């Protein structure tokens, strides 16, 4: 979900704001999903 190495390409193709939002929210989502997994399993 998060790509640091591919970030320059993502910015070039989809714009800096979208890339920042996507990677930022993906990071939050990954944390949230891992916490939820910890709760149910």
């Amino acid at each position, binding site marked *: *979900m998060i*790509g640091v190495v*591919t970030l320059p*390409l*993502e910015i070039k*193709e*989809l714009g800096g*704001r*979208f890339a920042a*939002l*996507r990677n930022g*929210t*993906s990071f*939050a*989502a990954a944390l*949230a*999903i891992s916490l*939820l*997994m910890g709760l*149910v*399993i």
Partner: protein
Amino acid sequence: MKMKTRQWVPVIILGLISAVLLYLQPYARAPFGSTVLDYTMELIVVLPAVLLLMGLLSLFISNEFISAHLGSESGLKGMAVAFLLGTLPTGPVYMAFPIARTLRDKGARVANVYIFLSAWACIKIPQELVELRFLGLEFMAYRLLFTIIMVAFLSLVVEKIEHAF
């Protein structure tokens, strides 16, 4: 294309660092070589396929078709289509960015572009079989459920923020 020479700067810097490190650590040469070769081969195989796919997409899929199925009026069905589109192909994510851009240029809504990229990154059908095998059905089912819920929710948040500017 105006930054053409500047684009080479990171490559040259990394090349110099690699050369120094490889000179100092001879045991690293073999894994270095095979990794570089692996990724170069991947790029050579993948890049023409992406270009071909984008060409076909822009030629044969009309803007109306994309807006109808992935546009702002597509609703829940559009989100489902975006999820499916993202899970079908296997390939590195850098392959997905140009495709995502083509979809957006052809009228797909921001939320669906977000869903497409996220599904591409973390819901892959061949990959799910591996997950099932190593982590079990319960883990896989819950992870998929949470991932889909989070991605669908965040896609709308990101779309709201994108449109706010």
